[in-house]
C-alpha cells in the first residue's frame, strides 16, 4: 500500500485576501499615545487570562495579580461557597493594599492599618469601633472585578458591562474545554520581561517564517524539504481570535534519546488520563488580545504577553500538567519538556528586542507582512478596529457634551 503523505500546500493568498495586503503602520508598535489608546480600547475592554483554577484548590485560596495596564492589584479568591471572585486589592476604609502575599489561603482578609476585615466573598465583616462611621457595612465590600472561567483558565474583565466570557470566546470555548488545560492540576512556569511592544512580542509567536533562522538547532521537525519555512497547514479566524494548525515533518530525523523518552512518557501519561491526541493537538489557539495555548497534550503550554508600556512587556509561559509527578520518569519528562520549550522561547526573546530597537528609532513608516504572516495582520487589524471605534466613541461623546 502506498502511504506517503501528499506534499505540503501552504495556505493561499486567496483564502486570506479579505484581510488585505497593505503595509502596516510602524508607530503602533512603539508610540506611547497609541499604547494609551490600546490600553483603554483593548485591554480594559477584553477578557484577559490571569490564572488557572488549580491555583485556587480550596475555599479561602487566593492569588494576587498585578495588572499594569489597569494600574491595579487584583485579589482572586475562592470563597467559602466554592465560587471564584475577583476584587481590587484595596481596603475600602482608606485604600490600603490589603494583601501583599502572592498566593495563600485565608478565611478572612484583614487590613493592617485599622483592622477592617473582609470575608472571602468581599463583604466587610468587622471593623473596630464601626459606630463612629457614617456608612453601612454592606456598602463597604471590596470592589469587585468581573471574573470568568473557561477550560480551567481564569479571565478578568475591567469592562463596564463585559459580555459573558463564553460569548467572547465563541466557538473556541467548547474546543478549549476539551483540552488538557481544563483538567490541569499543576504547571511549570517561566517568566520573562522584554523591552518590546506587546504586539511585536506576540506576533513572533504567530508566524513561522522565522523558524529556520532563529531556531536552527532547536526547531527540530518544524521545517522540512517540502515546507522549508514550516508554514502552518491551516489558519482559522474566529472573531478577534485566531488559530493555526501546525505542520510537522514526519520524515525528520529522530530527536535525541532524552526527547524520545520524554515525549513517550508524556504520551503515556496523556493516555492514562484518557486524553486523545485529537486534531486540536496540532492547533495553536490565539485568544484576543494576548493569550496563546498549544493544543498538544505532550507540551501543553500557554503563553501570555502582558503589556507594561509601549515598549515593555512581560511574558508568562506555563506548561499545564494533570496530576503531580507520579514517578521519576514523569518528573524527568516534565523537566525536559519545559527546558526544550524554554530554549526555543529564549531564542525568540532575543530577536524580538532587536526588532523593537529598530522600530523605536522611528526610521520606518511601515512594516510589511507576507501571506504567511496573516495572523499578525489579523491581530493588528483587530486592535486597530477597536482603537478606531474607541476614538469615534470619544469624539461622539465630546460632540454630545458640546
Amino acid at each position, binding site marked *: 500500500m502506498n502511504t506517503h503523505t501528499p506534499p505540503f500546500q501552504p495556505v493561499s493568498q486567496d483564502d486570506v485576501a479579505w484581510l488585505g495586503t497593505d503595509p502596516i503602520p510602524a508607530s503602533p508598535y512603539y508610540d506611547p499615545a497609541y499604547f494609551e489608546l490600546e490600553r483603554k480600547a483593548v485591554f480594559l475592554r477584553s477578557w484577559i487570562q490571569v490564572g488557572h483554577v488549580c491555583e485556587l484548590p480550596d475555599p479561602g485560596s487566593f492569588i494576587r495579580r498585578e495588572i499594569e495596564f489597569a494600574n491595579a492589584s487584583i485579589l482572586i479568591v475562592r470563597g467559602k461557597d466554592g465560587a471564584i471572585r475577583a476584587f481590587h486589592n484595596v481596603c475600602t476604609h482608606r485604600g490600603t493594599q490589603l494583601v501583599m502575599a502572592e498566593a495563600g489561603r485565608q478565611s478572612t482578609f484583614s487590613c493592617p492599618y485599622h483592622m477592617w476585615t473582609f470575608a472571602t466573598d468581599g463583604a466587610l465583616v468587622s471593623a473596630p469601633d464601626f459606630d463612629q462611621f457614617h456608612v453601612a457595612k454592606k456598602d463597604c465590600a471590596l470592589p469587585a472585578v468581573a471574573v470568568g472561567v473557561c477550560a480551567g483558565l481564569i479571565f478578568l474583565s475591567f469592562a463596564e458591562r463585559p459580555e459573558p466570557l463564553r460569548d467572547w470566546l465563541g466557538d473556541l470555548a467548547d474546543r478549549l474545554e476539551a483540552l488538557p488545560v481544563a483538567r490541569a492540576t*499543576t*504547571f*511549570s*512556569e*517561566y*517568566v*520573562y*520581561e*522584554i523591552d518590546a511592544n506587546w504586539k511585536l512580542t506576540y506576533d513572533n509567536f504567530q508566524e513561522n517564517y522565522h523558524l529556520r533562522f532563529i531556531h*536552527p*538547532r*532547536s526547531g527540530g521537525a518544524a521545517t522540512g524539504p517540502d515546507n522549508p519555512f514550516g508554514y502552518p497547514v491551516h489558519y482559522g479566524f474566529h472573531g478577534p481570535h485566531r488559530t493555526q494548525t501546525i505542520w510537522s515533518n514526519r520524515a525528520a530525523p529522530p530527536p*535525541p*534519546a*532524552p526527547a524520545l*523518552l*520524554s515525549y513517550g512518557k508524556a504520551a503515556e501519561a496523556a493516555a492514562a488520563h484518557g486524553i486523545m491526541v485529537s486534531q486540536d493537538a496540532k492547533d495553536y489557539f490565539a485568544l484576543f488580545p494576548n493569550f496563546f495555548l498549544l493544543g498538544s497534550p505532550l507540551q501543553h503550554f500557554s503563553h501570555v504577553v502582558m503589556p507594561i508600556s509601549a515598549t515593555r512587556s512581560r511574558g508568562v509561559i506555563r506548561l499545564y*500538567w494533570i496530576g*503531580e*509527578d*507520579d*514517578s*521519576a*520518569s514523569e*518528573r*524527568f519528562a*516534565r*523537566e*525536559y519538556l*519545559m*527546558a*526544550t520549550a*524554554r*530554549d526555543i*522561547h*529564549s*531564542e525568540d*526573546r*532575543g530577536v524580538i528586542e532587536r526588532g523593537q530597537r529598530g522600530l523605536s528609532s522611528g526610521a520606518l513608516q511601515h512594516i510589511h507582512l507576507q501571506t504567511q504572516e496573516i495572523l499578525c495582520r489579523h491581530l493588528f487589524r483587530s486592535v486597530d478596529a477597536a482603537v478606531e471605534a474607541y476614538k469615534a466613541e470619544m469624539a461622539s461623546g465630546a460632540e454630545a457634551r458640546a
Partner: protein
Amino acid sequence: MSALLPPGFATLEPFAMRWAGETAADRAHLRAAYPDAERDAFHAACAPRLEAGLAHLDETPLAALDEAQQRLMRLLLTFAHVSLAVEVQGPDEAQHAPLRASMRITRTPADR
C-alpha cells in the same frame, strides 16, 4: 568515602556533588556554570545511565526516595538541561546561554 548515589551508579559519583541542582532554576543554571569540558564529561557519564537511573527510581514512590536516590533524581534532572546543551545546541550553546538568562523559571511540580 561513602557513596552519594544508590549502588550501581558508581560512574556518576564524581558528578554527584556538583550537578545535582536543588531546584529547576538551579539546574537550568548549572547547564552553563562550568567549563564545557566538565559539562561534556558529565554528559558522557550520564547519557548511558539515564534509562537505568529512571528505571531504578521508578520502583519507589517519589515521596519515599532516600537521600541517595533523591540526589540521583536531581542529577538526572540536571542532565535534562545538559543534554539540550550537548545534543541540541552543540556549537551554539555558548551564544545560547545568555539568551536563556532572561527566562526565569518560577515554578515546577518538582520544586513543590
